């Protein structure tokens, strides 16, 4: 673990502002938190007395559960606010919502919103640290970090790896955060998908652009499939699931072009038969369930690091703690 670098940022809004040592600090910290999940009592007192609000304007069972579990394992006092229960539906402005939440003096606010830039706007106004849990098609930094942790634990490194990210590139925040992170840690990224799902200036994302799945898979060490929600687009981007799967669905046969020891990843939830065949999703190359476990550890690391920056004092991380874990009510309740 990098002992010399201290976390100084109030917020985690994206991968864009981070440098490689900061990313590695988060990954190293997450490694130390992975061990907590192995304990019989999966809870440490690291964030005891800290208030965390999960503010989700867009439904997200996965990411929210992962954050909630991370908060519970760190003994934080957390509260969920979702769009349906917040006053937002009654016409309250986003800023009013945020300032009302600020009045509860939380230490950290986790924000998921369907539009890019919302966490950034709120972070400027809020004293609390803000963690971007996904803003539109912009960034999803904790997803990229958990993906990086998964790659590192499987491959022992990230530098020099050849990574392909496949699917609806235009509407994916996962791809934007991942390309930046992987570039910063020295991997080589190719993105591929239907032309009608590529952003206008795909090359600006910093990856090699391909429109051919087989070409994109050739010799790859890591293949990330993106969730493709054809039904979500009012405007038809591809004619049908059947045609999509023919062009870009990952099957066992097509995966043979990748490196022998390729790992296959997916941010979930998967659409089996749309972007990925079950024989791949459940096959030996799949590390999709590891991603879920790593997600909790990464979010614990981010919560911990941000809370140290927010208070100025450094609470003890799990790996450094000599104290007995606090056996509280929220130990493991199977939220994942």
């Amino acid at each position: 673990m990098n002992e010399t670098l201290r976390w100084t940022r109030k917020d985690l809004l994206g991968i864009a502002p981070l440098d490689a040592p900061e990313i590695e600090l988060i990954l190293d910290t997450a490694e130390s938190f992975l061990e907590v999940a192995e304990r019989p009592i999966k809870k440490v007192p690291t964030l005891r007395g800290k208030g965390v609000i999960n503010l989700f304007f867009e439904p997200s069972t996965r990411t929210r559960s992962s954050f909630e579990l991370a908060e519970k394992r760190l003994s934080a006092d957390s509260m969920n606010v979702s769009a349906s229960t917040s006053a937002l539906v009654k016409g309250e402005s986003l800023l009013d919502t945020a300032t009302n939440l600020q009045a509860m003096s939380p230490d950290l606010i986790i924000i998921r919103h369907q539009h890019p830039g919302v966490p950034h706007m709120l972070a400027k106004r809020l004293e609390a640290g803000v963690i971007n849990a996904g803003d539109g098609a912009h960034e999803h930094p904790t997803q990229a970090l958990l993906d990086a942790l998964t790659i590192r634990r499987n491959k022992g490194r990230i530098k020099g790896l050849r990574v392909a990210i496949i699917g609806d590139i235009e509407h994916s925040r996962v791809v934007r955060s991942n390309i930046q992170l992987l570039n910063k840690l020295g991997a080589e990224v190719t993105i591929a998908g239907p032309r009608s799902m590529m952003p206008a200036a795909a090359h600006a994302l910093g990856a090699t652009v391909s429109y051919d799945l087989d070409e994109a898979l050739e010799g790859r060490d890591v293949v990330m499939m993106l969730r493709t929600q054809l039904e979500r687009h009012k405007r038809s981007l591809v004619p049908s699931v059947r045609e999509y799967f023919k062009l870009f669905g990952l099957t066992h046969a097509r995966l043979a072009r990748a490196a022998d020891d390729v790992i296959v990843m997916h941010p979930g939830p998967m659409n089996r038969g749309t972007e990925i065949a079950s024989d791949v999703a459940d096959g030996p190359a799949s590390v999709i369930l590891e991603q879920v476990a790593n997600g909790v550890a990464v979010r614990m690391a981010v919560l911990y690091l941000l809370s140290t920056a927010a208070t100025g004092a450094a609470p003890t991380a799990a790996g450094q703690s000599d104290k007995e874990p606090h056996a509280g009510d929220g130990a493991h309740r199977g939220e994942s």
Partner: protein
Amino acid sequence: MSEGAARLIRGGRVVDPSQGIDGTFDVLIEDGKVVRIEERIEAPDGAEITDAEGLVVTPGLIDIHIHLREPGFEYKETVGTGVVSAAAGGFTAVACMANTAPVNDSRSVTEHILLEADRHPYARVYPIGAVSKGMAGEELAEIGEMASAGAVAFSDDGLPVMSSSLMRRAFQYAQHYDVPVIQHAEDLDLTGPGVMHEGEWSTRLGLPGIPGAAEDVMVARDLLLAEDTGGRYHVAHMSTGRALELVRLFRARGVNATCEVSPHHLLLTDQAVSDYGFATCTKMKPPLRAKADVEALIAGVVDGTVDCIASDHAPHHHDEKDVQFSAAPFGIVGLETTVSLLLDRLVHAGIIDLSRLIELLSTGPARVLGLEGGTLTPGSTADITLLALDREVTVDPGSFRSKGTSTPFSGWNLRGVAVGTMLAGVPVRLP
């Protein structure tokens, strides 16, 4: 002074592109009209003297694309606050768009705007009527009624005229009143959910993009229809290099087409959305475009293809703009930043000379809409703007006279500012 009295503007640098004048002259005004421009004029008995030494004297500046928001949206701007903002920015006349509530699609709304303008005599107001009833894009509005009440042009600005057949009829019919049809050129179907220029920065930021083609296909369609009908076509706030190229091409074919650009499209690119951290002062329609577009527009400003510069002053309430990028309304204010921005970034930067700038801000807009003004020829109404070319200013939205404060130019240090205006020879004193 009363209109009957005389005024001598002494010792200023007179720049009037309509007469090819750029030199130090005295300007004599009597009965509200320019009488003579000569090197040395003796002040007639009783004449008031304006000492313009060190200042530039130009025909009054005209902004032909602003939103006064009245009637209906007085919380954003009123005719009163809008004309004061115009005068503070150095403008003697403005043309206001029809997207009010009710829409300016009838004689009564046009007359209401002009009545309000009479009550606030800080700048002249030329209403622009709607092309279609309610700006619904279906039936022609009563263009003749509005024209006879004082509307100088017709536009559904804020919305484009999407229907090709309606646009063709508007071109045909507007010729009876010799007025141009102004188009906010945007194919809404291509825009879709877009909120910024579709390109490198929308790609990086994950924001839905508005392709340049949304403007280009509309301009191309309109130019074809203008060619077929002989109508007068004016492209509002042109933002793409390709649309400008189309205007050039069709003008060479004899089509009666003009175009305007807005200062923000000349000075900022789509990168600003990222640089300003999703700030809504970078959200307007058309959106800030790519560098190549900016360069093409500047080339059009230099080579004469661009007829005028207009601010697209589009005030919104602070609460409306102080929201997330996607939810904010499109539009920024411009009346009080245009002159300083252009003096600093175009004239002092050596891109165009002062005479060309005055052409773009006075002679050009007057010609596009067929307004009086834009000239200091003897006999013309003495609407005049005074500029201090070297005075340094810092853009401070807190000091704006407009109700709107959203601008991406806040804090910019600029050299050159308008220091006063005259209407019919009478100095405008701001309330």
